[in-house]
């Protein structure tokens, strides 16, 4: 199983390593068990095989306040992968074909 996972191309987000982002980083760590973490000056690089999830609920639990998924824009430096979902509850970064989402088909 582990081998299969590592064969999936890594998706990645780089975040500013600040006190303010600590809760967000902890939440991502908790929600993505296969996360690989690297530190560079001022930067924390989070990589996961195939898919990476950022969940509003987990971030709010870490921060103890309400958190809008839009706030993720304040923390992110770069990413590798598609933003395949972004709504009020979660952000998913993954590789793979685009998923058509019904709500936009108005």
């Amino acid at each position: 199983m582990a081998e299969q996972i590592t064969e999936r191309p890594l998706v990645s987000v780089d975040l500013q390593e600040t006190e303010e982002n600590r809760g967000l980083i902890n939440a991502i760590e908790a929600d993505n068990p296969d996360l690989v973490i690297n530190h560079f000056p001022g930067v924390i690089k989070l990589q996961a095989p195939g898919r990476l999830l950022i969940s509003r609920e987990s971030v709010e639990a870490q921060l103890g306040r309400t958190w809008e998924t839009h706030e993720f824009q304040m923390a992110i430096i770069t990413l590798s992968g598609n933003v395949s979902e972004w709504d009020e509850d979660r952000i998913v970064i993954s590789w793979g074909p685009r998923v058509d989402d019904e709500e936009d088909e108005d």
Partner: protein
Amino acid sequence: MTTTAPNQAGKKSAGKPKKLSMKARYSALTRDLDWEPSYVSEQEMYPHTQYEGIKIHDWSKWDDPFRLTVDAYYRYQAEKDKRLYSVLDGFAQGQGHLTLSEAKYLNAMKVFLSGVTPLEYAANRHFAYMARQFNGPGPRFAALCQSIDEMRHAQTEIHTLSNYNKYYSGMHNFIQQHDRVWYLSVTKSYFDDALSAGPFEFMIAIGFSFEYLLTNLLFVPFMSAASFNGDLPTMTFGFSAQSDESRHMTLGLEVIKFILEQDEANVPIVQEWVDKWFWRGYRVTGIVAQMLDYQLPRPVMSWKEAFELYFEQQMMGGLFPDLALYGIRPPKHVEQAIWEKDHLSHWLHDTFYQFSHAANFTTTVPDEEHMEWLSQAYPDTFDELYRDKWEEMRKLDEEGKRFTYPGLPQLCQVCQIPMTFPQHGNPHLKAQFTSEYEGEHFNLCSDGCKWIFEREPEKYRQAWLPVHQIYQGNCGGPTIPDVLKWYGVQEGDNGEYVGSVDQKNWVRWHHQIEDKLGTSSEIEETLEAEGVHAAVKKIEEA
């Protein structure tokens, strides 16, 4: 959109208006503001989106994953600026420039300010054009946001670096120098090439190839290095810009997938653009390679390491397998770029060293500790191929014969970089490619640049090559001093770092801070009479 308008909310019958979902809000605030033209045809309204041969059948299939709306956009951008400006203020008030790793660190910022910042402004202009010219409201709105972002980047970069301009040379004339200085034509012509292409090609050139494929190499290790070299403001503007950059990357990826999904006939057109713009962009990022490896007194990540992480792993390992589903293969000539990762910065910094008398920055031979770092970062190449020449340069310098190149360089017709690149696979022999077009002979640095030239020779023959223009008499006069005057280069901007105005000031200011013995005037005299080395020795003895 009516449910959120405050003046109507009160008129609703009972309770609070229901908040729209993020997707519904995005749709209401972007798509629903679009209209179909009635008194002109769609083609008359959007005349630039057909001639490149790209076929779009349904513009509504465009998706913006960020679901960005105007109100959210300005709210977050304002917050980003607020954070940046508080850092700038604190740094300026606290004489933060004195806490940099070394004055010569700022050479990297001089290259950045004159080479990259004007590109941000050019991007602002061209994304504003995209925001008018695309048929679909989704890409128009995304382009509008990017246009405003790019203006913010240009302004915040200028504002951030303006504090250094008060104390250090080489930054006072960056806009004119961007248009004139020989090596800056590399970045300028790259962007001009994109601006003068059609809207879809521009999106693949800048939105995809630059923002998605290559921009990480420019910003991420570089801003991390700013942090490592005590340059908090640059780190902050860099990361602030990068937070927009991830939106731009997403737009770049969205645009390529959207075009590819719209019509199979688009695939070969896009593939050629990916091939062309990968190589164009890659050649430009060579300037970053030498910044990372040579211009940072405290290097943090080598070009090779950055290339492996942000290009080979993320793009070759992640993006291109994904794009294969759409019929896109990795760019032509990428194998050469991968081979060059062990060499690139050494060739280019050698070139910068030999020509820094004609530039807006200073250079110096890397010290022993720095060479040791290079040797560890490049175990297969540095000691074998590049160390000896730096030792030779150091010896010449110690003998009072600091080497500067005796003439003007031969330039590549496409990338405009001096022809310093060796043949693919053979670091010992420089590459020379040629092409003929309508009876004229052209010189090119690589297979990649030759391929690009021969696709559109009628475009690249118009290139404004600095060396050719100097020889035509268009750059202030025939001699180097004439040209430097025309560049707006002043005393202290160029040449050797050791003994330069910036280094002398650095020694002077730091001695003043530490001056418990009251020897400032003595040091001052030594500096003037005997130079930097003697002054530093005197400080150490005290």
